[in-house]
């Protein structure tokens, strides 16, 4: 390998807390790894598990899902609903062999710019050390090659 592995990470965040937290990291000129692409949603309640699967299909080596702390949801309850879905979906992914380490969940408030920057660095580092998610990416490759039958 000539170039070191740079993981591709897709983040699904709510606009009111984590997106704003990322904005704060920006306005505070904190520096963090550039591997994460953010998809902005109104609320974590809007984040469907399908998003995570599609991100993996698109070659993400890791996925981050983040929203308001419990009790802080702009929509009062969206993150509580999201938390249940994540609990179940995470168990499901893990059971099918998608490593838990690759799918991260966090609460980041609009005030936690520093936490956001740290998290991005931490997650990027962890996924980098895990290496590319070849097993899943292989599934996509099979599609693109000839039918084996």
């Amino acid at each position, binding site marked *: 390998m000539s170039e070191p592995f740079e993981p591709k990470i897709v983040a699904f965040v709510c606009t009111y807390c984590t997106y704003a937290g990322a904005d704060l990291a920006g306005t505070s000129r904190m520096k963090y790894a550039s591997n994460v692409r953010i998809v902005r949603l109104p609320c974590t309640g809007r984040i469907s598990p399908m998003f995570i699967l599609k991100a993996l299909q*698109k070659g993400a080596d890791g996925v981050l899902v983040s929203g308001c702390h419990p009790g802080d949801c702009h929509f009062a309850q969206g993150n509580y609903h999201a938390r249940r879905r994540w609990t179940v979906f995470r168990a499901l992914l893990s059971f099918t062999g998608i490593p838990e380490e690759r799918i991260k969940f966090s609460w980041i408030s609009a005030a936690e710019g520093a936490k956001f920057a740290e998290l991005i660095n931490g997650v990027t580092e962890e996924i980098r050390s895990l290496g590319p998610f070849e097993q899943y990416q292989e599934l996509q490759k099979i*599609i*693109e090659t*000839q*039918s084996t*039958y």
Partner: protein
Amino acid sequence: MTRILLHTRLDDCLAAWRASGYSVLAPSKSHELTRFNEVQHASDMALDLVLPERTIKDHFFPQTEPLIRYRIKKHEIDTEEMVPPELKRIFFGVRPCDASGLAIDDPLFGWDYKDEYWFRRRGNSVIVTIACTSADDFCMCTSVQLSPDSTKGSDVMLTPLKDGRGWQVLALTDRGNALLETIPSILQESDAEPAPPASVPVKFDIDKVTAWLADPASFESHFWKEISQRCIGCASCTFLCPTCHCFDIQDEGDTYSGIRRKNWDSCSFAMFTMHTSGHNPRNTQSTRWRQRIMHKFNYYRGKFDVNSCSGCGRCTRQCPVDMGITETLQSISNLPR
């Protein structure tokens, strides 16, 4: 005197074929499923099955097949055709019903436009069939004018020997002859007796069935509702069928590129005939089941003069609610005149 192949020489046989550039596929069990997989040794094969769960159709008309790769550019779309590779394949241990299935589908894939994907694979493949000496409750080849030792669709026919040591070998086609020429020293001459074919009782009167189906009055018969009441509308019968051949074209990809694919489709699905408007001409399961039966034993027959059924019985064997062609055709043939 006929030529025979002994079980003990099967590995030599496989080696010779591989040396001649063939890959050999035979029924085998992997991950709790019996199907045609590539095999290296005789011991990999599961030849004592009445039938593997999956048909060989899968290897000629796969469940999903890439046709065209496309790339979306600013002002145009680049396309690249994807054609199946040239692979010399031997299907060893095919049952007569599955082999017949290929022959039944040949005219469909070639009547107006020659389906390159199907015929390229057909041309590259040699079908080595083993006649059936046993059958189960679901076998029904004899009811559709075939038999446990039917040679239809086969290139080479193997008939088990009575003494169980091997098979009588008979080449049926040029392809079959060519195949046997790769193993002249492995085959031997023998007068060993062949085992009698399995006894498969006739379960319905196919002539009576086809006559009834051809009667326009039958189309609206209450019979269809009765018989299909428990049908849940899955596609396990169609997808396990050696002759079902319906497909759908799908584009799959992202913003930048993708692949146009040919995917199996099934008349059992409500979506099969769903119009964009929301109207569905076959909006009940009974009309879908009627379509399946009519297609196989009326329309297909009308067009190609053959029933689109080789009597393998998988539709009933695997049906989650114990339906299938046998029960329906039996009921039709028992209908009062």
